[in-house]
């Protein structure tokens, strides 16, 4: 009996392995993951009502400078909402162009303009997400860093605490806070 069970288990294991190798899709690219993470921040962070001008105001994701996502972000937010508000993506060419938005992604290409960008974005109910440690040093709130092809969430606790945003503890659990 025991022998039979072991035999069955080993067969099962073999099959699973074979199936896993064949059916597992290719790991998503760095930005594909980051696009999903961006959207996930929408889920784990609460924005104050003051951040919205009207009940029908959409949730706006702003991308300043170059856009590394392309269509990936759109795929990630397709059909999703924030508490019933549609999610839209707005591109800002320069820090000066930054206007009203709720989440501002600052890609690595802006690494020399962090101060200007953060200055432009401060004081608003705005979650700032960058891609480097230095972004956090400059006062950015969250950074999606990539190490050994793994994306890590790093958080500037001081910056987040000073904002009007509510961050879910679950996010804090998985993030590296500094």
């Amino acid at each position: 009996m025991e022998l039979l069970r072991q035999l069955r288990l080993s067969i099962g294991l073999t099959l699973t392995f074979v199936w896993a190798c064949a059916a597992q899709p290719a790991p998503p690219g760095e930005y594909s993951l980051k696009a999903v993470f961006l959207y996930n921040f929408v889920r784990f962070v609460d924005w104050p009502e003051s951040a919205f001008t009207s009940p029908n105001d959409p949730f706006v994701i702003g991308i300043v400078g170059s856009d590394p996502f392309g269509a990936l972000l759109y795929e990630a937010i397709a059909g999703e909402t924030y508490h019933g508000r549609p999610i839209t993506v707005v591109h800002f060419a320069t820090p000066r162009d930054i206007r009203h938005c709720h989440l501002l992604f600052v890609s690595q290409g802006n690494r020399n303009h962090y101060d200007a960008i953060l200055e432009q974005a401060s004081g608003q109910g705005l979650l700032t997400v960058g891609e480097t440690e230095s972004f956090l040093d400059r006062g950015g709130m969250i950074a999606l860093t990539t190490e050994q092809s793994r994306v890590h969430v790093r958080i500037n606790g001081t910056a987040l605490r000073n904002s009007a945003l509510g961050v879910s503890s679950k996010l804090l659990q998985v993030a590296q806070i500094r």
Partner: protein
Amino acid sequence: MRLSLHNAPIKRKLIIVILLTTGSALLLLGSALITYELLTFRRSLATNMEVLAQVIGANSTGALAFRDPKSGQEILSALAAERQVTKAAIYDQHGNIFVRYPIRPGDLIFPARPSADGYRFSRSHLSMFQPIVQEGGRLGTIYLQADLSQMYWRFLVYGLLLLLVGIAASLGAIALTTNLQQRISVPILELAKVAGSVSEQPDYSVRAVKHDNDEIGQLTDAFNAMLARIGESSAALAASEERLRLALEGSRTGSWDWNLETNETTWDDFMYPLLGLTKGEFEPSFATFSKIVHPDDRARVADAVTDAIDGKHPYDCDFRVVDRAGTIRHMAGRGRVFYNADGKPVRMTGVNMDITASKKNEEELSRAKEAAEAANKAKDNFLAILSHELRTPLTPVLAAVAMLEEDETVPTDIQRELEMIRRNIEVEARLIDDLLDVTGIIRGKLELNRQPVDVRPLLEHALQNYCGPTATRKKLQVSTKITATETHVLADSSRMTQVFWNLLQNACKFTPEGGKIDVRVYNEAAADVQEKDATPDLVVQIQDSGIGISAHTMPRIFNAFEQGEHARSRVFGGLGLGLAISRAIVELHGGRIIAKSDGQGKGACFEIRLRTVEEKIAADGATNTTAGTAEGAALPVCLRVLLVEDHPDTARQLTRLLQRAGHEVTWAGSIREAHQVVEASNGGDAKGRFDILISDLGLPDGSGHDLMRDLAAHHPMPGIALSGYGMKDDILESMAAGFSRHITKPVDWQELKLAIQKIAAEQDA
């Protein structure tokens, strides 16, 4: 089980009942509990798992959202606290396994992809898939698998618990039963023991002990009351049986009972010894009983039983039985047959009585009676023979005296002596005749030759001949008063004369000198006859003034050999037969004779009452008699007489008388001589033949009858038989032998003379 429970003692029944009750209660309770537990456990397990999955799912959203397996792993490792959970996994949005628990699953297999949400039970596990949702969006799926062995373990514990409770309950039941047994079984067992002892040995004085006042206590009371009642009735029955036993034993009686349907026979203990049998060695039945009945009585007993069963009459049969030793006993069987409603005989019951003793007594009595009768008969015969032998010698004496009296040459003074001799011989002859009469009466051989006769001349003749001389001598005053007009009666005149003679002689004898005798004859209407034209009674009264009859003697006055007082017979002489003979004669005539007396010394009166007949009939009868006598007397005869007589004196006297009358007499002393004489005389002419035979019947070499018959064959002649016996049978026998007349000794010469004359006249005619 059922059967064994039927016969099991109450203790076991109680145990079984209690065990069954507790067992089924426990079983029901256990099943209910387990079923409930099974249902609730599954649900609660599912609920628990659901909650757990939700908690884990909620906690793991962050890890899932931000692809942090390490954090996810930490969350899942918290499941270590929940032992039931054997496996857990989190799948991502795409259905790929994100993290697994335990971390090193070894050979555990996880579903490659999540199945539909919800839980399902397998035999040993609960599998559950739950969505992981964050802010309305599904992040992935959590998978949990719980082991059900705990549930089974729990059921095992329940089962063991039930078993323990069951064992405890059983022990409790046994303990309880022991206690119950004390209260139920013990009294019942005691009751049963008492009942058993009573049925083994019928001692009804024992009583069962009452323990409690419950149903068993009531049963005990009822049982004791029943015992008391049985004891009373048993004592009464025993007393009754004892009485019956004593009665049966005393009367040597046994009872039997026969079931006619089953042929089963029951005998009581007395039957066996009664029939000379031993109980146990003999199987009673009608067939075996029949075998011991005397062979000559078997058919009779069988018939009596059959008749009884057929209902003809009750069974009542005397029979004999023969026991093994061959002893014969007499039994009296009595019995009754009982019938059912349909009239079918079903039972016969009765008794046998040993009547051997009474039978013996009966036989002895019968023998004694026969002996007594034989003795009495011998006495009568002796008296008859004695009187005959006494009478016979008187005949020749009388004949001689008669001859001498007729002899004119005899001197007058001798004539007087001769008269005295004749009178005394006549008295003696009369006495002997009385004796003969009495023996005849006793033997029922007194014969009457009844003819219509006038009583008056008979009475007058008696007064004149028998009373006259004595009355004269004793100077008695005799008066006769005849007022009767009807004086004819149907009577034997000689016997009636004898009665008058007796009564008159008594009157003369017992009346002192100078006394008085009154004779009255009168008619009186017959008292006891209702006919209109009935003839009146004739009453003859002879009243004297003699010694009378005392009251205590009166009842015996007519008995033979009894004379008033014994002492008197010595004074007055006689045998005291007169009145006995008189009464017998009067009663044979259909009349009555009674005696009256006012007491001793006051005289006596004898009264004869006879039925009269009409004078005309009487007159006719009387004429014939006188005519015959007159005719016979007129004819003178001279005959050749053959006299056969063995008594020489009698023969000599008769020869002389016959010769005196002018007859020629030849005497023979025996039959042989007679034959010789006849043969001798036959040789000559007719003149020498005998004209008449006069023969005694009792001859030394035979009977006169034989002689008469022999002579009739070769030398016929008329004959006259002389005999001491004068009964009717004797006379008829003589007539049958051929004799013309039968004359009773002592021979009355006148009678003989007339008979010879009559025969001579018939011969001439």
